[in-house]
């Protein structure tokens, strides 16, 4: 099973590729709304892609209070 750091790295890679941002410019504690310049609908799209990638189901209410990539990874990790 992946560690939290591995999960975080995968999220950064996926988010960078999809939203066409250089991965080097993203770090685990960044606010992904601000860094990726995304709105709520794009956040849902990211959620969908992460669910598919990690093969988990992540209800959107789990995103309450989650703004960093690391916090997102923790939510995903809890379902692996």
């Amino acid at each position, binding site marked *: 099973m992946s560690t939290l750091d591995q999960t975080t790295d995968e999220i950064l890679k996926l988010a960078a590729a999809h939203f066409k941002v250089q991965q080097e410019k993203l770090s685990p504690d960044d606010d992904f709304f601000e860094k990726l310049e995304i709105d709520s609908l794009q956040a*849902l799209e990211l959620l*969908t892609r992460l669910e598919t990638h990690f093969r988990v189901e992540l209800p*959107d209410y789990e995103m309450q209070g989650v703004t960093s990539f690391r916090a997102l990874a923790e939510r995903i990790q809890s379902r692996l």
Partner: protein
Amino acid sequence: MKKHRGETLSWEATDGVIELALHREPINEIGSATLGELEQFIEELEIATGHASALIIYSAVPQGFCAGADLRELYEKGRPLPVEARVAGVRQFLERIHRVLNIIDASPLTTIAAVHGVCFGGGFELALACDLIVADRVARFCFPELRLGLIPGFGGIPRLKRDVGNAVVRDLLLTGRSFNVQKAQGIGLVGQVAAEGEALRIARSTAAQIGKFDRHTSVAAKQFIKPIPYNELRREIEIFCTLFARPAVEEALHKFSESRDLQPYLP
């Protein structure tokens, strides 16, 4: 059927397949303009049905199929009115949209919703009125009405109950959570999953296949296998109107309408 381009919808018929495209930016929110054009569409649909075998409903806007009712319009129209008039107004709207969706639901044509992106609330209810749902990999479904102190009002609960088990209905309605296409297919709502951007192509391929079958047989089969839950649909309107009268709902609609939050679609 003559090709038509309206403000929020367009439609045309080609080779026995009628296509209804939703194109109201940003995400096809269903307000009075869309409802008016849907009513116009179903009048033409009833005339054109004899020459067609399938109806495809899809969205021509990139963000998704349909985000549901136009909540900002709903709030703004009701704001200056006393509660009785607000409820009367919403009841009238619901009765009109129910008529539209009931006609689509009962259509002799085989109906296909081609879904991409957001398919929430009234948009999900529109898809559920169809016989088949084809959805692409980034589609996301939700009944978020509980977040506003409401239940789905466009017929979503009776139609969802028709299609899935009660435990699934409770999960989706009582949490108001959104779910992806894998989940939707797993519970039997989505029949076919498409690659991103391919839902309409697959819907067209499916419609072409459907066109090969004897229409009388398809119509008889559909009438047998797809009951319309008319009593429950009427009851849903009553429950919705009772809830809608509550001050908490007006407050929630106000908050939604005024929000500049980046995350209005997240709980």
